[in-house]
Structures are given as structure tokens and as C-alpha cells.
């Protein structure tokens, strides 16, 4: 371990995202990387980790408490927010939009830290995209299930073919300017009410 190697601390309650950031830092050649998933743990471990750089999630409501720990900690005597270099407005905006923030010890050269924040921003964004896609896929699956159930009701009660049942759902949706899944949901609810 070289003396000049940076000690990096990642604080993130989202364990998966923290692991993704950690992996990115290790791939970039950093070996002194610590991850903490709960704010409570920070007070206990910050002295032992003695971070030069702290990467945190901006949505963490505990950020005020974390800053207070940094202020109290002798390990990070003068933490400076990464955004201190206001000349790079685009990078700052990108970090805030991605939802990531960083603190560095005073005096650390910014060019040593910038790649760390850039990588964190990229991985935060990739992670959000992944989650969004996952949510969309989950919703699509839910909707398909609803439509299948609505079709089954029409086939059973109106004696339609599967194709005709779907055509009827889609036509109704178009006429009412609603989504097919919404019509399917209404039909399922109505059928439930009418059941003996």
C-alpha cells in the first residue's frame, strides 16, 4: 500500500448501488475503499477508516448528521464539499442531478479526486437507469397479466375468441381515450362485483 494512496469511504444505504460504486473504484485501481450502509455506523468507524474522500448519496436524509460526524471527527478535520470548485459548473450539476455528493479533506488536489466523482456520477446514473427499466418491465408484466385476465372473462361470458376479446378491449380503450390495461382493470373489477 503506497502512502499516497487515497482512502475512500462510500456511505450508501442502498447496498447494491454501494457495491457497484466500490467495484468501479477497485477497477480504477483503488484498494483502500470502505463501504458503510448505515449512518449509525459512521460515527463508530470513521476514525479507523480515516477517509480522504467520502462519497455519499444526496437523497440520504441523514446528510446533516453525517456532516456533523465529519466535523466532530479528528480523522476528517476539515471536510470540504466536492462542489467547492465552482468553475466546473457542468460537473457539479451532473453530480447533483445524479444524486451524488462527495467530501474531500482540505488541501487534497482536486485532479486526484475528480475521476472518483466522475466515476460515481456515471455509476449512479447507470444504476438509476437500470432501476427505471426494471420498474417498466415489472409494470409491463403486471399489465399483460391484467389484460389476460380480462380476455378470459370476455371469452367465458361473451363467448368471444381470444382475438376478438382483445380487439374489443383495445377498441373500448381507444374510444374512451384510456389505456388497454386500465380498461382491463375496470372489467376485472366490474366482473368481481357482478359475481354471485
Amino acid at each position: 500500500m503506497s502512502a499516497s494512496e487515497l482512502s475512500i469511504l462510500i456511505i450508501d444505504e442502498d447496498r447494491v448501488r454501494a457495491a457497484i460504486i466500490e467495484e468501479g473504484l477497485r477497477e480504477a485501481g483503488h484498494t483502500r475503499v470502505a463501504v458503510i450502509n448505515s449512518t449509525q455506523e459512521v460515527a463508530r468507524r470513521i476514525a479507523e477508516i480515516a477517509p480522504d474522500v467520502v462519497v455519499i448519496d444526496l437523497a440520504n436524509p441523514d446528510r446533516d448528521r453525517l456532516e456533523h460526524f465529519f466535523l466532530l471527527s479528528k480523522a476528517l478535520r476539515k471536510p470540504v464539499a466536492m462542489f467547492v470548485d465552482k468553475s466546473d459548473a457542468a460537473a457539479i450539476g451532473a453530480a447533483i442531478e445524479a444524486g451524488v455528493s462527495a467530501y474531500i479533506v482540505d488541501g487534497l488536489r482536486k485532479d486526484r479526486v475528480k475521476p472518483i466523482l466522475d466515476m460515481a456520477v456515471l455509476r449512479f446514473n447507470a444504476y438509476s437507469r437500470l432501476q427505471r427499466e426494471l420498474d417498466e418491465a415489472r409494470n409491463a408484466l403486471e399489465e399483460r397479466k391484467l389484460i389476460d385476465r380480462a380476455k378470459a372473462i370476455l371469452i367465458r361470458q361473451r363467448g368471444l375468441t381470444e382475438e376478438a376479446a382483445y380487439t374489443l378491449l383495445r377498441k373500448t380503450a381507444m374510444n374512451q381515450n384510456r389505456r388497454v390495461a386500465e380498461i382491463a382493470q375496470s372489467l376485472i373489477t366490474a366482473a368481481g362485483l357482478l359475481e354471485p
Partner: protein
Amino acid sequence: MPDLRITAGFLPLLDSLLLVIARERGLAAAQGIDLTLVRETSWANIRDRVAVGHFEVAQMLGPMPIAANLGLSPIDVAIVAPMALGLGGNAITVSNRLWERMLKAGAPGSIEPAPAGAALARVVAAGDGRLCFAVTHPFSGHNYELRYWLAASGIRPDADVDIVILPPQLMADALAAGTVDGYCAGEPWNSAGVLAGAGRIVTVKARLWPDSPDKVLGVEQRWAEAHPEALAALLRALYAASLWCGDPANHAEAAAILGGPAYLDKPSDLLLRGLSGRLELARGETVRVADFFVPNAHSATFPWVTHALWYYAQMVRWGDVVHTPAHQAQAARSYRPDLYRAAIAPFGASLPTSDEKQPGQMRFFDGASFDPTRITTPSA
């Protein structure tokens, strides 16, 4: 009339009220301002997003601009406070377990700070476990008024009891879990603790220090200097909001608006407690607290230089900053009654004749007053 877009950051607290009402009642629009409000999750986010220009203005804790200008924050930004967002609004809540002990130690069950503090001092003196109190931020009215109450009651903060930082929405749970024994926070978080059955309100800021300041409108200094007309228009909109909120006939509607999903996302009857001053101290035990939260009366939105200096004096008292004449001048310059006067004058409202309060105008529950010409470094 200016046609201006302003984005303001706020935290879900009762005293985000003036910003919310200025937007929702069309008062900002009437001044030519397209006001966008963004709910944030921490004061650190508010500060950073003002610093990088995402927010032109924001609701801020009264000491925040002073701390930023004195270089006590992790980010280097100059912030001015051209307006206060009301007076009072805070309370101190303790756990049921601590309240039982205070009751045995002679607490009368009123909200008067002196007897409650005396009872707490007897509990602390009896030993039996070190007590822990939570506040929302080190540079907050909550921290400094809790410390004032403890110290005036004969309890030494840090030496006799611990004070930790906790986001307000976690306080009731922490109280119920026994992680903390009490907290000082803004509404609705005291009433939320009572509603959850986690604790009891033992005293209120309005009794510790009548007509005391809390949140301010924080503005990045460079933006304020570059956009004087936009800022003045916003101050007028907020002043109009304070007039509307100051009328008790509007409290129910104000609570309903503030409780909406984009703002506090809370039932309006919970918000009405702080707004009307009819506080439930414990379940089923309601008292009427005069001037609990004051949006307009008593020059509630005036950014008194003396208030800035009181916060500065507390920073000196608790070792946050070393007292020097330069620091004191910097703290005084953080509040900008000149900007307020210039903007509000067209309303024809009666404005204070001086930017500073006389010592006799600031009375604390222990009989002390505050004289900014006599700030001294505490002896170690």
C-alpha cells in the same frame, strides 16, 4: 411588472408556509414571479443547491447564512437573509419515560420553561444514565435554544447531557425506541411525536424567548446583487403571504394547502396544531399557546440584525467560532434589513424604526436580556 422564474428549496416544516402560500394563493404570480418550489431532504442539500445556483432562494435555518459567511460550512458560498419566515414554531418534546421521571422530580405539567427545566436538572443530577437530546442541525435555532434552556436550568450541554443531530422525521421513532430521550424541533414534528404516543411536549420556543426568530429566506449574495428587482418582488409576495397566514380565519385553508402531497404530505389537523397554537402536549391534553407561531404580527418577517448577532453569540458561546470584531461584523452583515425595507415599503406597512432591537426588547424566560455590544469569549 417583472416576468421572472424563481426556484426555491424548502424542507417539509410548518415554516415553509409562506413560500407555499405565496405560490398556491397566486401571490407570487401577482408580483410577476413564476415560483417553483422543490422539497429537499436535508439542509446540506439546500445549502449546496443554493451554492451551485439550482435554487435562487431557499428556506434556511436562521444561523445557516451566518455559518456559511464565517466559513464554518463545507462549501464556500456567501448567503444573505433579506427576510425572516416567521417567529417561533419550535418545541421541546421528551420521551414518556423521561417525562415520568420529570414528573416525580416536580415538573408541574405546564409549558413554562423554568419549572420544567428545574425538574429536568433534578433528573440529571440524580444520575441513573446519561440523557441524549436530538436537534436537527448544529447551526440551528433548535440547537441554540435547547442549549440555552438547559444551561439556564443548570444543566451543562455536552458535559452533563449529549446533543446529537437527527433528521426531524426520524425523531418520534428515535424517542419511542429510546435512542434519544428528547428533542427540539420545529412543527409538525413535536405534534407528530405526541400523536405517535412517543412523548410529551414539555416547553415551547415562544415561552423560552417570546417573538424569537427561526427560519429565514436565504439567498446567494451574488444572485441577490444581480437581481434586485426579482428579489424585491419575491419579498413582496412573501410579505403578502404572511398577511394572509396571519389571519386566523385562513388557518384551516392554510393547513390543508400545506398538507398537500407536494409539500408536507400530512393531515391538515396535525398542521393546524402549530398553526393555531392549540397544542396537544400529550394525548388528550390540549393547551392554547399564545403566539406559538407568528407569520406576520410583531414584525415577524423583519430580518433583525440583533437576531443575527444573538445566533453569532451562541456560536461563540458553544465554541463554534472564535469571537473577533471582524467575525461579529460579518455575522451582522448576513441579515439584510435594507433589502427588506426597500422591497416592503410600497405596502405601506409600519416598519421598525431601527434595524436593531433594544436589549429590553429581547427577554428570555430566565429574565436575561441580550446585549450585542457585550459578546465575550467564554472562559474555558
